[in-house]
């Protein structure tokens, strides 16, 4: 991931998020596990991160996911924005999502 490109939360929230085909995840009781088939690494996501990833996958941009998550988790949008942007950077670092400029194919 280009850390400089995605340094600002606003840029991350405006990005298009893609979950690559080589990433699979499965739900467990109180967490989920994501598997990057290219690196052969498993990652554990807690309940909140799992739900965030789920909503992200259904949204065009992280910003779109913020509204839904804020209502669901009962947190102010500013808090969700910071958490979500941070999560996106971590997931991208591990190859579990890809951050692309809006409009990029």
């Amino acid at each position, binding site marked *: 991931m280009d850390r400089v490109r995605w340094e600002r939360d606003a840029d991350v929230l405006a990005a298009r998020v893609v979950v690559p085909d080589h990433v*699979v995840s*499965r739900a467990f*009781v109180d967490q989920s*596990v994501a598997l990057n*088939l290219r690196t052969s690494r*498993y990652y554990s996501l807690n309940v909140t991160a799992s739900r965030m990833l789920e909503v992200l996958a259904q949204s065009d941009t992280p910003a779109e996911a913020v509204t839904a998550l804020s209502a669901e988790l009962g947190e102010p949008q500013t808090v969700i924005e910071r958490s979500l942007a941070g999560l996106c950077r971590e997931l991208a670092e591990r190859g579990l999502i890809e951050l692309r400029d809006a409009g990029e194919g």
Partner: protein
Amino acid sequence: MPARAERSAAAPWRSRAFGLELEGSFPAPGLPPLPPDRVTSLRGAARPAPAAPLTRLELVEPRTIDQAWPDSGARRLLAEDLGQGLERTIDHHPEIGYRLFARGFGLALVSPDGRLVRCAPPDLAPWRWQRFLVGRVLPWAAILSGLEAFHAGAVAVGGKAIALVGPSGAGKTSLVARLVLAGAGFLTDDVLALDRASDGALRAHPGASVVGLRAAELEQLSAAERERLGTLLGNDDKAYLSLARSHEAVPLGAVYFLTTGERAGGSIEPLPAPDPRILMASTFVLTLATPDRLQNLLDVCAEIASSVPAHRVRVEPGTDARALAARLDAHARALLS
């Protein structure tokens, strides 16, 4: 009869273990043959379609495996050295398959899809060298065939499997033996193969029909219990007994994780949210990391977590295996009723 001559002195047979339909023609005490009505002549006559992927087992000379193994293109997956030279190695070649070696037990070559296994054992009695075959090679072939293998013993209670998961020394074999003596059906001692039926439910497959009991565990059984349990094949680091078992898979009904060295030994506690790391680390084979295998492991573990009741059993040193097995038996029967 010398071990080498004894190897070829057997009619062709078919068996089932670890979810594989096996075909061979050498004495295999840990792989009970399917009843004759299930297998017509293996000499050219039509056979019933196997219930599972057919894996052929062949005995060969070491040079056969050496000659089949290419000089280049292979990658070492495992090299286990305990200070006295290599104990075990596993090598992979994408076209030839997997070459497994265990010091004192010989070589095996497993085809990439797990359907052909060639063994080149040393000059030992079948029960002895086949510890490698049933303890390492066939579980590997099972995983290549799409099953998943866990480090677990298992018995059948009320038509369902209860799995006892834990590392070596946790007490799996003691409990399996005691549960069998209490009337449970023996499934497997050390490696439990799982897959999913067409409806997605997890199935537990019988393993080898052999248990390896430590001397201390054997001494705790009466002579009558030993006789009821099974037939002694031989003594090595453990006493190896052949047990009767069914050929059929059963639904996985419960999982008990054995944890050792803790207080409150003998307690059985529910695990409503089994840690996926513990589930996944309970796999018997850590070194096979193909994408298909890793995803299958994840799928099976997620299915266990969501659909199979799990409990933790605390076992402390000196725990009375007989008493613990009785409690476990009662607990499992109540759970599965």
